[in-house]
């Protein structure tokens, strides 16, 4: 318990955070404020779960972190560098980040292996990408990542012929293949059955044990408590709780959801 607490006290740490978000605000006119002055830092090697009901701003937060959406105000720094400084800075930040999407976003007509190789695109010379001629070591790395998610025997199968759970595992293999410092996962298990969910979260947890930082938004509180070190709760675009997973009892978190649910109905 004490060890976990020490891990989540950012002020006491001298290590540079891998990601720092400050004053992030994003509005979708006319009426939606997706993010409202959101600030937090992520330490190396943490597994952070972002909890919150639909519409709380989780997806916008992940899109801002990867620079797919530009915030109205606030900064995003990855390994200490502002991602919006220049297009070059954005690309180098994206190399440190791997994003997993709720809708997988695989290239339908390519094989599972080729989809995992997408994670290598930024590391490979352009001519190799155009000719689709990857090195043996890149292909072996990609196959290894497929093995991690238990799909190495489906490497040659077209992405659109895989089940939803398998597609999401390919997407995780793609993220692993990036060798990124941080894996961001936006609702990675929202469309999966309990068994696939456990497999997917276990592979993310094992990535953490190899030194990768994981930030994942989740719907189920018990999963967040089982796999994450720290829980950040979002509601209406604001952070309403940020503490060690072991210190937030399930009751408190359920209440965040319930109260919000009642509110949106009234």
């Amino acid at each position, binding site marked *: 318990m004490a060890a976990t607490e020490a891990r989540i006290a950012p002020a006491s740490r001298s290590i540079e955070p891998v990601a720092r978000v400050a004053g992030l605000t994003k509005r979708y006119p006319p009426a939606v404020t997706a993010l409202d002055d959101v600030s937090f830092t992520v330490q190396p090697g943490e597994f952070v779960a972002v909890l919150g009901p639909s519409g709380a701003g989780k997806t916008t937060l992940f899109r801002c972190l*990867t*620079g*797919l959406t530009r915030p109205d105000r606030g900064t995003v720094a990855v390994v200490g560098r502002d991602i919006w400084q220049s297009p070059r800075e954005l*690309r*180098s*930040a*994206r*190399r440190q*980040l*791997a*994003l997993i*999407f709720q*809708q*997988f*976003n*695989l*290239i*339908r*007509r*390519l094989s599972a292996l080729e989809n995992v190789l*997408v*994670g290598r*695109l*930024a590391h*490979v010379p*352009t001519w190799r*990408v*155009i000719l*689709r001629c990857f090195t043996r070591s890149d292909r072996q790395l990609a196959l290894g990542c497929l093995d991690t998610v238990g799909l190495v025997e489906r490497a040659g199968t077209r992405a659109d012929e895989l089940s939803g759970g398998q597609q999401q595992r390919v*997407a995780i293999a*793609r993220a692993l293949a*990036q060798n990124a410092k941080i894996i961001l996962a936006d609702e990675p298990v929202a469309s999966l059955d309990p068994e696939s969910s456990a497999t997917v979260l276990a592979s993310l947890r094992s990535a953490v044990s190899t030194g990768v930082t994981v930030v994942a938004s989740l719907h189920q509180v018990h999963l967040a408590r089982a796999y994450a070190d720290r829980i950040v709760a979002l509601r209406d675009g604001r952070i309403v709780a940020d503490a060690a997973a072991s210190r937030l009892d399930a009751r408190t978190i359920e209440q965040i959801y319930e109260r919000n649910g009642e509110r949106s109905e009234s």
Partner: protein
Amino acid sequence: MATVVRRAGEYPEPVVTWWSGRRLRFVVVLVLLGAFYSASWHLAKVDPGRLLTGLPKMAGWAAKAWPPATDELPVLLLRTAETIAMAAIGTTAAALLALPLCVVAARNVTPSLALYYPARWFLNALRGVDSFVFALLFVAAVGLGPFAGVLGIALHTWGSTAKLWAEAIENIPPGPLEAAAATGASRLKVVAFALLPDVAPSMVSVGLFWWEFNVRASTVLGVVGAGGIGQELKNSMDLLLFPRLLTIILLILVTVTVIDHTSEWLRRKLE
């Protein structure tokens, strides 16, 4: 709650004034359409009487045309092959030129809007001028023969293909492209690896359509001196060699039908 019960014939009907705005608009549109067609009739110098006197002449030609001439068949077949070749080279050249431009002219992947709009204007200009007109200019510039036809086809098809390809690109789902871009890959890598496999089948389908279209179009390019079977067609017409003319028309019909079916079959295979 009191329910009003009325019998048929007792319901009050909504009042329609004879000169309501909608009726007025309808009459104005009708008058304008009438004026447009009567002006067009005069401008096109439509004269059914002349068709009636011309028809027996054509019937006479048709009677004289049978049987079709076969003595020059080898030459005519060569000219037909020339027509197909013109369409193939012109369409392929157009496709190669269209490949980089369709990316610039697709709103979702264009490197910058400052390039997007000029690219669109350029493609629209190419599309606006028919390959026939381009061929006319090239005959004057590079001389008579099929090469002028190839250049004419290439320019017009460049614009048309690139525009249709750009639209195919704009219609693909953005998710996989975002996923590839989010790995830090450059735009060129994203386009080559993530975009191309998704749009390739529809791009090939568009390319085949234009090849087929150009075979049909290039049968007439010969009329302006740009080679192919069209040139023989015009010669025969000028010399009133009707059996030869009939052979040429039959050759064109067979060629176009075969190409249409091949292209359609290939395109269906792609889906």
